[in-house]
């Protein structure tokens, strides 16, 4: 009896306290996200700068590691790098910047950078540009400014889009790089006769962005830079006669596309060019990342996208620029500014290109003596351009491009009939994305 009366309350209490403890943990777990949201995050360490990187692939990852390592050696400041997969980084950028972002983060030039500057999710860096400005051309400066005229961006590298091919294939078959639209389509026709897929093409899965390169160039060559940019910025109607001309030209080209493109990745399409199954590919210099056999690199060449309207010629080059921005409330503003100054130096670009040779440096004092022939030719192409565009989804509202334009174009390319229905569909959505 006594035993019982002593034991029961004890077990009762302990069971209850266990539950109470669990509840406490549960409540703490619930409260945790609220707390971190309210507070200013972990105490900031003046000796550390945080760096958010989208370079998750092996090559850019080690290139960025090289950069941050050199910066630590120079300045004594530690860099804490937080690497996120490229697509995930892009998709979550908006919530990332509103939460507790890293001090410095990788991003793209163009409308996409200006959008976040306008939304005050990035911090202006005019003071950084005071010290790095002399190393950049006016075009690069233009690319780094927000709509308010302040600087928000430090460029690192860019890479041109063009039509790539294998020299040996052209030599064997006696093809010559075309300069005009007529020569281009004639060459494609000849390639198909010779049993090649004339234009390597893969926009399956998450790669539908890769068709924008062709769209941009067709539009730029047929209608010129001004019209293309107004179209991208939502200032002209997509049912404009000029936009439908672009689709008409594309329809002319589409029979020469590699079959089954809607289910193929861009890497597989690039591989078919390297395997000599396709004759040409409209793609960026990053095609080089697909090369595993270094001997092959010397056999790759490109020509600028052919001329369609002589009054515009080949005056525009699509050369997306990647670089860095400063988050709106950096935890270590001085350190972050120092890091940005370093990233905007010729030394940083040299270090980066040393690891990742499939890009071209933006800094005018960068060392170009180590460039491979493709890099040299790319640099010349970019330098000779009258206008430089960024890319469809960087020159426009990315939501508009990814949810309206891309699915529309991809579907249309499957059955490229009259484009006016598609253009009407796109136009009906334009006002949703571009309102004053």
């Amino acid at each position: 009896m006594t035993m019982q009366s002593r034991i029961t309350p004890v077990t009762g209490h302990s069971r209850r306290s266990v539950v109470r403890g669990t509840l406490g943990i549960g409540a703490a777990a619930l409260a945790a996200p609220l707390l971190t949201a309210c507070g200013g995050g972990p105490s900031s360490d003046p000796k550390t700068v945080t760096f958010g990187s989208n370079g998750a692939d092996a090559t850019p990852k080690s290139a960025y590691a090289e950069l941050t390592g050199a910066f630590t050696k120079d300045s004594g400041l530690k860099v804490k790098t937080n690497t996120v997969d490229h697509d995930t980084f892009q998709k979550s950028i908006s919530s990332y910047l509103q939460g507790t972002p890293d001090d410095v983060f990788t991003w793209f030039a163009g409308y996409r950078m200006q959008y976040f500057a306008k939304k005050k999710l990035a911090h202006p860096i005019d003071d950084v540009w005071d010290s790095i400005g002399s190393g950049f051309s006016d075009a690069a400066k233009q690319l780094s400014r927000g709509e308010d005229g302040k600087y928000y961006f430090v460029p690192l590298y860019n890479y041109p889009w063009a039509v790539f091919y294998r020299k040996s294939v052209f030599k064997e078959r006696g093809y010559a790089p075309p300069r005009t639209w007529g020569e281009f389509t004639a060459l494609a026709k000849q390639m198909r006769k010779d049993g090649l897929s004339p234009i390597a093409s893969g926009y399956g899965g998450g790669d539908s962005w890769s068709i924008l390169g062709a769209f941009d160039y067709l539009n730029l060559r047929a209608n010129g830079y001004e019209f293309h940019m107004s179209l991208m910025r939502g200032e002209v109607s997509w049912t404009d006669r000029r936009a439908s001309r672009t689709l008409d030209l594309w329809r002319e080209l589409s029979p020469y596309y590699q079959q089954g493109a809607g289910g193929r990745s861009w890497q597989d399409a690039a591989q078919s060019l390297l395997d000599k199954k396709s004759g040409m590919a409209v793609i960026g210099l990053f095609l080089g990342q697909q090369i595993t056999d270094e001997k092959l690199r010397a056999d790759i060449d490109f020509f600028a996208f052919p001329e369609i309207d002589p009054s515009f010629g080949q005056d525009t080059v699509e050369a997306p620029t990647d670089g860095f921005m400063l988050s709106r409330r950096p935890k270590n503003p001085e350190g972050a500014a120092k890091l940005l100054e370093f990233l905007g130096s010729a030394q940083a670009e040299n270090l980066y290109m040393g690891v990742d040779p499939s890009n071209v440096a933006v800094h005018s004092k960068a060392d170009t003596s180590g460039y491979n022939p493709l890099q040299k030719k790319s640099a010349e192409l970019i330098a000779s351009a009258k206008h430089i565009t960024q890319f469809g989804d960087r020159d426009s509202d990315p939501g508009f491009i990814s949810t309206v334009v891309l699915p529309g174009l991809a579907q249309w390319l499957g059955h490229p009939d009259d484009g006016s229905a598609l253009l009407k569909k796109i136009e009906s959505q334009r006002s949703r994305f571009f309102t004053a």
Partner: protein
Amino acid sequence: MSSVRPAPDAGPPRAPAPVRPARSRPRPLRLGRGDRLFLTVIVGVPLLALLVFVWLPALASIGLSFTTWDGIEPGDIQWVGLDNYREIFTNYPPFWPAVQHNVVWLLFTALLPTPFGIFLAYHLDRKIRFTRFYQTAVFLPMVLSLAVVGFIWEIIYNPDNGLLNGVLNGVAPGHHIDWLGDPDLNLWAVLIASAWRHTGYIMILYLAGLKGFDPALKEAASLDGANGRQTFLKVVFPALKPVNIIILVVTVMESLRAFDIVYVLGGGVGSKPGMELLSLLITDNIIGESSHIGYGSALAVVLLLVSLVAIGTFLAQTFRKEDQ
């Protein structure tokens, strides 16, 4: 509570013991204060969590669906009334295809993999040889994570070196089918991948039901001269009503919330031509660099209403039957 004295060997009778019968007579206070506090906490905290993490967002979505907002500055929220809904129903190209695909998904799942799973379960429940092996084989896809399922089917559907096109090429050379790229085809390709997974799920649910089935009923049926099909349709199937209900609910829910496998096979960027689904359209508009929270919320409310109608009808019917 009861032990007032701190001494561990507190002697014979406990003080409050005689009070107990007296306390239980006036009804209302059966629980002590501590107990009530305890109950409040143990019910209150989950309730609070439910309110904060489920109902608040749901109500907020409904509220936001009447506004336009880029998700950045709360001050930018603008009331637009029913504009989002009007736009969605009249002028949003992927909306009606998405509704249609959701319906196709539901019908397909309900008519093919679900009955097939039941069929397999019924046959594998009998003592045939290697039945464990077959059960494991069919259930295996359910064990894999969805990313892996996506990879497997990407390899099968790859247009250049995929299994399917390889086989096709062996049988009839020159055919080149773009399984995931062709908008007229890719929904079916994805449905097959999803059915591959769903069949095993249904099979295991039904097997569990069959294991608990009273064999005497089957014996009685066979004594009465029922053949295999009659036994199943007239005896086994009706007797397994609880399992059937679970399967129906699972099928409807899986069809309405279909998202992951389409997302994976579509390349993980959002809706693709031919594979639009309501769930994908919602994320298209909400997640991304420039989000349209109001528009996406309106789409979410549409999906919520559709789900409520489906689940509500079903629950109402079940409960009505149970009441009778």
